[in-house]
C-alpha cells in the first residue's frame, strides 16, 4: 500500500467544504425531515385533523329508544370517516377509480346515567320517564334532559386503549378492561385499576327525531386531565 500523503488544507479548500457541505446537507436533511414529519406538521403546527369535525360532521349512533332502560349499556358501531394521506376525499375523487371511503369503526357504549351511592353501588336510574311513552318528536326541554342523562362512552380504555367490555359481577355491572383490569362504573367513571381518568365520552347531540348523533371528538379538558385518547 502506498504511503499516506497528507497535503495541507488551504483556506479555499476549507471554504469549498463548507459551501458544498452546506448545500448537500441542506437538501438532504430539511426536505426529507419535512416529508417524513408531514402528518406532525399538519396536526401539531397547522391544527388539522384526519377526522372531519366541522359543524356538519355529526354521525348517527342509534335511536334513543334502543338504549336499554335498565342498568345496562348497549354497544353501537359508528364508522367515522378518516381523511388520511391517500384516503383524502379530494384524492379519491381525482383518481376516479377508487371511491372507497376510509373509516375507523368505533364502538360506542350508550347507557343512562345512574346515581352512585357512597359504597359504589348504583342508585337511582336517571333515565327520563317520558321516554316510556315516546321516542321521537321530542321538545327542546326533553332533548336537554336526555342530553344531560345519557352516557355516550368510547370503548377505548383510558389506560392503554384496549376495548372495554360490560361484565356483571355480584349483581352489579361494570366496564372492565381486559388488558390491565381497569374498572369503570356505568357512567364511565373510574373505579379501580391503573387507568388515570374516566372513560372518554363523545361529543354528542340528540335531535327531535329521537336519534343520537356523535362527533369523533372527546371530552379532553377539565377534571379529566389533558391526555387525549389518540389512537382510536
Amino acid at each position, binding site marked *: 500500500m502506498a504511503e499516506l500523503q497528507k497535503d495541507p488544507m488551504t483556506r479555499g479548500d476549507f471554504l469549498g467544504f463548507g459551501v458544498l457541505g452546506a448545500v448537500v446537507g441542506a437538501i438532504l436533511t430539511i426536505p426529507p425531515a419535512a416529508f417524513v414529519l408531514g402528518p406532525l406538521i399538519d396536526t401539531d403546527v397547522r391544527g388539522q385533523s384526519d377526522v372531519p369535525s366541522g359543524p356538519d360532521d355529526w354521525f348517527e349512533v342509534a335511536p334513543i329508544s334502543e338504549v336499554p332502560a335498565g342498568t345496562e349499556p348497549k354497544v353501537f358501531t359508528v364508522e367515522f370517516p378518516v381523511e388520511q394521506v391517500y384516503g383524502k376525499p379530494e384524492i379519491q375523487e381525482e383518481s376516479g377509480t377508487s371511491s372507497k371511503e376510509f373509516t375507523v369503526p368505533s364502538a360506542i357504549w350508550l347507557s343512562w346515567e345512574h346515581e352512585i351511592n357512597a359504597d359504589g353501588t348504583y342508585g337511582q336510574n336517571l333515565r327520563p320517564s317520558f321516554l316510556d311513552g315516546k321516542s321521537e318528536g321530542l321538545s327542546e326541554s326533553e332533548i336537554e334532559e336526555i342530553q344531560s342523562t345519557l352516557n355516550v362512552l368510547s370503548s377505548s380504555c383510558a389506560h392503554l386503549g384496549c376495548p372495554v367490555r360490560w361484565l356483571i359481577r355480584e349483581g352489579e355491572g361494570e366496564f372492565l378492561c381486559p388488558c390491565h383490569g381497569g374498572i369503570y362504573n356505568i357512567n364511565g367513571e373510574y373505579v379501580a385499576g391503573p387507568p388515570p381518568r374516566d372513560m372518554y365520552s363523545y361529543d354528542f347531540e340528540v335531535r327531535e327525531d329521537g336519534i343520537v348523533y356523535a362527533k369523533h371528538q372527546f371530552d379532553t379538558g377539565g377534571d379529566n386531565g389533558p391526555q387525549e385518547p*389518540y389512537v382510536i
Partner: protein
Amino acid sequence: MIGRIRSQAFETGKFLTDWMEHRTGIVTMMEHFLYEPVPKRGAWLYTLGSATLFCISLQFLTGILLLFYYVPTTDHAWNSIYYIMNEAYFGTLIRGIHYWSANFLLVVIGLHMAQVFFSGGYKAPRELNWVVGVALLLLVVVLAFTGYLLRWDQDGFWASVVGMKIGSYSPFVGGPTIRFLMGGDVIGPSTLSRFFALHVWLLPAALAPLIGAHLYLLRKHGVFGSEFEYSDRLAKLHERERLESYEQYEEDEGEPFTGRRDREDRE
C-alpha cells in the same frame, strides 16, 4: 484418463484462484477470516452469537421473500397474508420461518447478552462492541413491534394500539411521537404505510451496518468468552507474582524466606 481430467481440473482451479487473488486479494482475506485462532474451551458458548446472526439472516431472507406477495394497505394486508399462508407454494414455511426465527432471535439474543454480561466480555477494550450490541438489541425489539402491525389482524392491531398508547405517555414528546408513528391523529391507512416503511426499510438499513460494526470489532479485539479460557495463564501469572514477592521479602528483610509468615497470615 481420469487422472488427466483431475489434474486439469486442479490446474484450472488453481489458475482461477490465483487470478482472483491477484485482482481482489480474496484468498488472503478468506484465510484471514477462516484461520483466526479462537478460544477452544468455550467454543459452544460462542455459537450464541453466530446463532443470532443466523436468525437475523433468516429474517432478511424470508422478509424479502414475503414482500413478493405482501400488500401494505389496510384493505389488502390481511388478505395478502392469508394468501401467503393458504395459497402460495411453501407460504406457510416462508412465513413460518420469518415468525419462528424472530422468536428464536429474541431468545438467543437474550442468552448471548447474558453470556457476555456474566463473563465480563464488555470490559476494555471491548466497551464499544457492547454498546453496538445494545443498539442492535433495541433495533430488533422495535423491528418486532413494527412487524406485528403489518398483519393487520386483531392481534397485531391491538398490540400496536397498546404500544402507541404507551408511547403517548412519554414526558414532553408523547403526543408528537405517536402522531408521527400513526401518520396523523388517528390510526388509519397512513399508520400501516409508516410501520411498513420502518419495518422493511429504515430499521433493517440501520441494523445491517451495525451488525458489520459488531463483527468488525469482534475480529479486531478477538472473542472473549470466559475467564476459564485463561486459567493456565492466570495461574502462571500468580505463580510468578508469588515468587517475586518472596524475592522482594528476602531483599527487604535480608534473610531467606521460610514460608512461615505466609502460613501465619493464612491462619
